[in-house]
């Protein structure tokens, strides 16, 4: 049955199943401006909310005078913490086990913090009224540095006064949040103490922001007659929002409907719960009419979840030949005013403990200290699984530093330390079990494609030419080999606010042989409606074009934990395949009945069941679907539906090999990306075109972060990068031509072997761009310099190395 006769080939192609570069079904509406985003929702009588925000990073709120604002025609209400307190909604729990002010309760902890919520009949009036609310502040000392914070007498969070135990164990200081330790400290120290070679480095992974093109917002509509609350919003996890909204408001969960309409990018920024959501709900309950809140770009950059801000210190030991023997990592994590990280509950530093990377490191130790400062809360995973970008940047920089220490080629150093193909499944020193990998093959392919040896030769010649004064440009070769950990995750160790991180799919086959499938995830641009239909097409033999994929409406979609951390394909994709298999099992019984043979005598063949050995006797899935609804089949219920809740047995571990070639103008600090090669292994490839698109997007966001994108504060906590003039969002102009490539190492535990790819390019791209910049200066003695590598910092590096005269 397995020969691909022309007929079978055609039937298979008609399915547009897995492996086909099916065009994105979403794009027709997106490219024609017909998307339906939160701000497109307009309801009769709808009011508009806007925030009064703190200009100060740390201050007492002495008083809030609403009178002038309330006197402005069109202003309906001005809410403050005092108004929310009777409902116990002036504070809310964070995903990280902390709590956060919804509206300033006596003080503010960061610039841009929400102080009062103005509700008016018109968006413009709301904005005018914001200016009329008079807030009296009394400035307090500002702390923007976590190390200083841990030494300071200033108590940032008096609400936690005397609380020596936090959500993740003991607190060492009044501005300390948690210490998270993983691995074997004594064992690691012993190895380091006795090692032949040890390289040490301190690095700062700067604060940045996911900056989705669509900012955050919500529309709440409380129907007081039937007691139902409907909430539309920019939610990467609509079901979790429903549960949280129910727990917070006391409204029973069946009376809350949460809808994520089209979302214009999330990248982790839309995982958490923001004061704006809460205030729109409260305002709708108070006023009895729908209330919309949509933040602007500056509000998004200044107050919604940031990413990174990790101060990392590493020690890595090796033999003289370069075999790594141990790794030690300490992180001081700046969480801002509240700990609002979006990580699985038991992982306050996410999966930072994947920081042993792609290497066979016998012993390791990681400790992370979370600290409060006067900066915005957040700490989300910007286009990565929980803190994986930080982990990969850390190890890929440590490898480079070790290569310098050993005076060794960094590609070779990686090669001799990779986990070998035959070691998988591999248990890393910090506990994770890597499912599958073939790193050597990927690495060799990458180096060969870019002619690595040739590049190094050219680079050496360039250095000589530079020294002779013939050029002012240096050449950098950035290398990165990354392993991600995505698809959170097994319910046994991953939950968010107690909800296990399974995911789900529910399928209904219609009588005429088309179908709808609903999932617990929500696309923010990833193309779920395209790819999940392809998975299903291959599983159930119905063309992807005849399958609608729907997500985001909690009244209709099965419960799921949402989309972030590349979990949709590993978890909901698996649920989709499993639900498809249930459909197929029932279809098999129906087919056997229709063909008048035993169940075991039919087999699935692309889009039909055929009688074994007699392929001319068959029933197509279309015929089977019809039969499921139009005839009584003994012992089988009518209908053709299935639902699957999938609890993955393990994470998946995509990996990749990236090379970047850069020319750097030493005098102006301007880097020019000559070449970027990205080899990704995401296991089974569902839609190569979408994979390509995801890689381009992730690499571009990696370029941004490595070369300039940051949320910078001055000494008194003012955000210096609050608009897109200063916050770097690359355009087509700044982006090089990417070369993509792949190997395929399926996940052994995933039903279709897929691993997730949306975030790999970001995770691998950041260290690759950074390594290219740093590598350019290696010949002149540079060991490490921090990102972002914008013009002036690159210039400064050159300057410090004495390259200007």
């Amino acid at each position, binding site marked *: 049955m397995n020969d691909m006769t022309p007929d079978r080939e055609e039937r298979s192609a008609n399915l547009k199943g897995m492996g086909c570069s099916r065009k994105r079904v979403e794009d027709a509406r997106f490219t024609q401006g017909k998307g339906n985003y939160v701000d497109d929702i307009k309801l009769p009588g709808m009011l508009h909310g806007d925030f009064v925000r703190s200009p100060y990073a740390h201050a007492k709120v002495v008083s809030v005078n609403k009178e002038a604002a309330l006197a402005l025609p069109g202003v309906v209400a001005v809410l403050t913490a005092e108004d929310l307190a009777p409902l116990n909604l002036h504070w809310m729990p964070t995903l990280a086990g902390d709590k956060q002010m919804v509206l300033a309760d006596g003080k503010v902890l960061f610039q841009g913090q929400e102080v009062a919520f103005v509700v008016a009949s018109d968006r413009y009036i709301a904005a005018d009224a914001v*200016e009329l609310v008079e807030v009296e502040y009394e400035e307090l000392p500002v702390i923007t540095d976590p190390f200083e914070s841990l030494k300071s007498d200033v108590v940032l969070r008096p609400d936690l006064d005397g609380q020596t135990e936090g959500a993740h164990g003991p607190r060492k200081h009044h501005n300390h949040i948690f210490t998270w330790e993983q691995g074997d400290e004594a064992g690691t120290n012993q190895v380091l103490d006795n090692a032949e070679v040890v390289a040490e480095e301190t690095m700062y992974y700067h604060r940045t922001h996911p900056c989705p093109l669509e900012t955050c917002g919500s529309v709440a509509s409380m129907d007081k007659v039937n007691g139902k609350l409907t909430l539309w919003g920019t939610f990467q996890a609509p079901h979790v929002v429903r549960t949280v909204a129910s727990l917070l408001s006391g409204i029973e969960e069946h009376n809350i409907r949460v809808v994520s309409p089209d979302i214009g990018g999330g990248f982790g920024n839309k995982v958490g719960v923001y004061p704006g959501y809460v205030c729109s709900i409260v305002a709708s309950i108070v006023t009895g009419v729908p209330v919309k809140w949509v933040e602007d770009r*500056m509000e998004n950059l200044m107050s919604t979840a940031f990413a990174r801000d990790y101060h990392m210190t590493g020690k890595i030991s090796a033999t003289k030949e370069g075999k790594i023997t141990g790794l030690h990592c300490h992180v001081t994590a700046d969480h801002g005013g509240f700990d609002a990280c979006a990580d699985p509950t038991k992982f306050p530093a996410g999966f930072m403990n994947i920081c042993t990377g792609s290497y066979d490191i016998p012993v390791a130790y990681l400790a992370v200290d979370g600290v409060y400062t006067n900066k915005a809360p957040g700490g989300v995973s910007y286009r990565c699984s929980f803190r994986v970008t930080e982990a990969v940047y850390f190890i890929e920089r440590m490898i480079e530093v070790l290569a310098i220490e050993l005076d060794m080629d960094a590609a070779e150093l990686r090669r001799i330390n990779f986990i070998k193909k035959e070691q998988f499944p591999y248990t890393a020193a910090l506990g994770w079990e890597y499912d599958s990998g073939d790193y050597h093959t990927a690495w060799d392919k990458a180096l060969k494609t870019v002619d690595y040896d040739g590049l190094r030769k050219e680079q050496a010649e360039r250095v000589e030419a530079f020294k002779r004064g013939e050029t002012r440009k240096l050449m950098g070769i950035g290398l990165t080999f990354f392993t991600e950990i995505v698809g959170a995750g097994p319910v046994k160790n991953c939950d968010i606010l107690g909800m296990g991180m399974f995911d789900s799919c529910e399928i209904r086959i219609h009588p005429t042989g088309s179908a709808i499938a609903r999932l617990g995830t929500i696309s923010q641009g990833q193309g779920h409606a395209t790819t999940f239909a392809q998975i299903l097409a291959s599983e159930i033999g119905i063309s992807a074009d005849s399958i609608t994929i729907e997500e985001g409406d909690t009244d209709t979609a099965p419960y799921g934990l949402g989309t972030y951390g590349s979990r949709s394909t590993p978890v909901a994709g698996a649920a989709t395949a499993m639900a498809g298999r249930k459909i197929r099992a029932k279809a098999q019984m129906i087919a056997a009945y229709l063909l008048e043979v035993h169940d075991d005598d039919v087999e699935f063949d692309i889009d039909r069941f055929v009688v074994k050995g007699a392929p001319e006797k068959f029933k197509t899935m279309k015929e089977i679907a019809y039969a499921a609804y139009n005839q009584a089949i003994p012992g089988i219920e009518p209908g053709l539906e299935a639902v699957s809740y999938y609890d993955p047995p393990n994470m998946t571990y995509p990996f990749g090999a990236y090379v970047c070639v850069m020319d750097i103008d030493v005098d102006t600090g301007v880097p020019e990306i000559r070449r970027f090669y990205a080899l990704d292994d995401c296991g089974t490839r569902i839609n190569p075109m979408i994979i390509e698109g995801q890689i381009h997007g992730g690499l571009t966001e990696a370029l941004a972060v490595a070369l300039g994108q940051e949320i910078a504060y001055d000494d008194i906590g003012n955000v210096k990068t609050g608009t897109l003039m200063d916050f770097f969002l690359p355009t087509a102009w700044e982006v090089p031509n990417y070369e993509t490539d792949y190997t395929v190492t399926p996940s052994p535990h995933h039903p279709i072997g897929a691993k997730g790819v949306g975030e790999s390019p970001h995770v691998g791209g950041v260290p690759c761009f950074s390594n290219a910049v740093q590598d350019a200066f290696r010949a002149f003695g540079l060991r490490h310099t921090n990102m972002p590598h914008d013009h002036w910092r690159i210039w400064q590096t050159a300057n410090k190395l004495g390259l200007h005269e």
Partner: protein
Amino acid sequence: MIPAAFDYYRPETMDDVIAILQEHGDDARVMAGGHSLIPMMKLRMADVPHLIDLQAIDGLSDITIEGNRITLGAMVTQHDLIAHDGLTAAAPILQETALQIADPQVRYMGTVGGNVANGDPGNDMPGLMQCLDATINLIGPDGARSVAARDYYESAYMTAREDDEVLVSVSFDTPSGGHAYEKQKRKIGDYATAAAAVQIANSGGIVASASIAMTNLSDVPVWSDDAAKALIGTSCDADAVKAAVAAMLGDIDPSEDNRGPVAFKRHVAGVILTRAITRAWSRTTSRA
């Protein structure tokens, strides 16, 4: 990013524009392409209760080249500059500069008049106009008057223009010799980290005349007479260029911002000017 309420006017004659300006004083402002003014209003950094749109006024969008004199109407867009072949032939530095301003979308809207009148040290046209020794032509309640671009800028956003005056055009002599507009920026749509406008004339291998202006390196554009003088009479050799750079560095006064600290900006200003002079000079010799 929601502006405060404002009244919108779209008068059809210049007299009406001036009447409205006179009536409302500094509560009124004219708007050309709106690509500097509207963002400021949205950020509520500019409060403009009376906004006067100039789009309906005739005769402000002409590019005229008469003999040796070039005049650009205030409402000529940056895109118009790029697309005008006659202008590019007569004064190629305009196209070279305009292509380094913002992006195509902004250039379709942004005007010469708005860019010159705005008074933002980041704008590229003011330095260019100083390099070209342009005249800025204004009209007001008391009639027309002209101010040299080199005298026009007082400090950031403060210019010689009175509140009730409108910029109608800029004019300058057809430049001779080689040109270059060199700009370093962080990304498309960014203002200059440092930019240099250079015109040089070559007479038998010797610099006959030169004009040099720098952008975003002080609170006003910097026309550096000393830098130009350092070149004149030389063969534009490395030493002369060094001397010009040293003179220019004496005239600029950059401040630290997200683009970088002062030392970096001064260094880059030197590099950018060196490159601009070199390119402008190479264009003279290649023409000769």
